[in-house]
């Protein structure tokens, strides 16, 4: 079994926003509300869930791009949240992020070569000549021609820009990459190119990923473990094939069956899940999922379900797994 590279414990991040008209009131958005998980070295951990459930906030919080309110993040034995600024810089070399739209994070007036050289110089990892050589090697690794170094971001297609975003994350030689929807904006044929590239780089550099996506197919392909989030909380974690084959949480089950698959024989039936995704500003009482859950009982409306560690690999937060219960009786797919 691979060792644990990253451990997240009970992370919380609330935002205070002014909402309402004509009198604006301060409300609390419980974006990340007590989340825990572990990422093993050399593996990819998928974070899935619907829009606004807190995936990006969590990804940023664990890199301290937003400061979490509470909880702990341990990276390779080191307590990330209590690390001072200068040590944090060293740690940042080892933990990088890739965004959905790398364009917004690239300086439009800076040539690609200069943008890639910069982090190497800033972190004092190379002198100018070494940095330049390293960038050419990186461009080659992510499948871009050497002359890309002399061009500007707008001269590239979406897929090529994502390659640049990946190259930039790789410059400083990280061990962990938080990838926030890295292929969501791309066409499927380009998405496949990028996923294959990431997988290749993962093997050659022994990288670990926290891989954020709302696409279950992408997560099933790229990751080995995953967590399903709903309104700021994790409702289920476990290894990939087992979660897909036998989801425990009713929400995981519904998410799986609502994901379209390219097979008309399978997709003809639609899943009737009622209701909308509620807001993290004013989440439902008890189990956040209860208004949409076909199995909800009285207790679900009142009490937030405890975490049930089902076995060494899997856990779920649902009252159906309280002592004496055996979980829902799902129809077979």
């Amino acid at each position, binding site marked *: 079994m691979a060792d644990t590279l990253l451990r997240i414990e009970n992370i919380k991040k609330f935002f205070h926003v002014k909402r309402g008209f004509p009198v604006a009131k301060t409300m609390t958005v419980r974006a990340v509300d007590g989340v825990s998980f572990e990422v093993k070295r050399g593996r990819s951990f998928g974070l899935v869930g*619907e*829009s606004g459930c807190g995936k990006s906030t969590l990804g940023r919080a664990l890199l301290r791009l937003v400061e979490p309110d509470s909880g702990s993040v341990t990276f390779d034995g080191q307590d990330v949240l209590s690390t001072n600024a200068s040590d944090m810089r060293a740690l940042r070399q080892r933990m990088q992020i890739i965004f959905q739209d790398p364009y917004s994070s690239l300086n439009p007036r800076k040539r690609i070569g200069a943008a890639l050289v910069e982090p190497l110089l800033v972190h004092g990892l190379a002198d100018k000549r070494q940095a330049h050589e390293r960038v050419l090697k990186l461009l080659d690794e992510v499948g871009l021609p050497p002359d890309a170094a002399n061009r500007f971001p707008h001269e590239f*297609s979406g*897929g090529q820009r994502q390659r640049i975003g990946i190259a930039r994350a790789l410059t400083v030689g990280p061990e962990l990459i938080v990838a926030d929807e890295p292929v969501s904006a791309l*066409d*499927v*044929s*380009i*998405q*496949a*190119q990028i*996923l*294959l590239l990431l997988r290749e780089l993962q093997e050659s550099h022994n990288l670990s990923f926290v891989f954020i996506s*709302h*696409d*279950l*197919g*992408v997560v*099933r*392909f*790229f990751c080995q473990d995953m967590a399903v989030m709903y309104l700021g909380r994790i409702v289920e974690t476990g290894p990939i*094939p087992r979660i*897909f084959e036998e989801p425990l949480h009713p929400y995981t089950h*519904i*998410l*799986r069956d*609502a*994901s*379209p*698959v*390219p*097979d*008309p*024989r*399978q*997709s*003809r039936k*639609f*899943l*009737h*899940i009622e*209701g*909308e*995704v509620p807001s993290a500003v004013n989440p439902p009482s008890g189990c956040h999922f209860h208004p*949409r859950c076909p199995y909800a009982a009285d207790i679900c409306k009142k009490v937030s379900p405890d975490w049930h560690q089902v076995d060494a690999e899997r856990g779920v937060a649902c009252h159906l797994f309280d002592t004496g219960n055996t979980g829902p009786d799902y129809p077979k*797919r």
Partner: protein
Amino acid sequence: MHTMPNSIQSSESNPDIILDVRKLRTSFRIAGEWHAAVRDISFTLRRNETLALVGESGCGKSVTALSVLDLVPSQNGRIEAEQIQFNGRNLLGLSEDEMREIRGNRISMIFQEPMTALNPVLSVGHQVAEALLYHRDMNKEEANRAALELLDQVKIPSASSRFKEYPHQFSGGMRQRVMIAMALACRPDIILADEPTTALDVTIQSQILALLGELKRDTGMSLIFITHNLGVVASIADRVAVMYAGNIVEIADVDSLFAHPTHPYTEALMRSIPRSDRDTETLHSIPGQVPPISRMPDGCRFAARCDLARPICRKLDPALQQINAGSTHEVACWVRGDHDLTAIEDRANG
């Protein structure tokens, strides 16, 4: 069974066909030159049928839909066609007044982002009622009542209490339902839906797809459903046209397309999707990218990315052709179509 292939079948010979588009070419002027974004495509739509237009970004799906409704911006856009026959009537050459009568009344459209199509300062109920007042002979009270019925029909929960709410008070999925209600207001023969679920979460997408399926069944309307997601195609379409770089490269009944994807592009596309319902050992990626419309190569536009390409592919443009005699499954490919390649290559070289 229909024995005539899609591209030959016509509305004259078959009253079941509600829309018959022939050799549609829509071009844009870029830096002083005209470039075709949609190039000589032909397709038909039957009554009460869902035809999906699928393909990657920029392949011409939206332009096709906009062309049918004559909504391509006229400053730099140009529509040419042999015919765009709707219900036995050629839409080409209709006056703007006549087209306005068709739009929204007989053929209506739904877009990906409903917020841009809704008026932010008018209540949702009011906007649906407006659509009814505009298109149907009703007084205000009748329109309000019918609007409420429509909102119920598209399953807006407690529609009567939400009638007076504004678009920003609705979630994305609920706004899309309002758009569908407005599109239904005049009981159209055809709804053109351009990526109506792309911006939505999957559980909400599943609700909207189910709703569209139900409405189609209950009203007898036809649907042109535009998407880039083959999973969505599989769940909603009766027939599918796969587009690549402004062409329809394959058209078939949905079961046939997924069972026998025949164009090398369709085949590659299917193999590039990571599936949630089974393990994918490895993905097939298509090398390269779609050329921009100002730099389209001669011949088959997929040739540069195609494993099967032969010299002829780079010279001549393949037309849609049945995959075998009597089939309604058609493909535009020199290698995969039912061609006598040797003869054609000899002629091209001779």
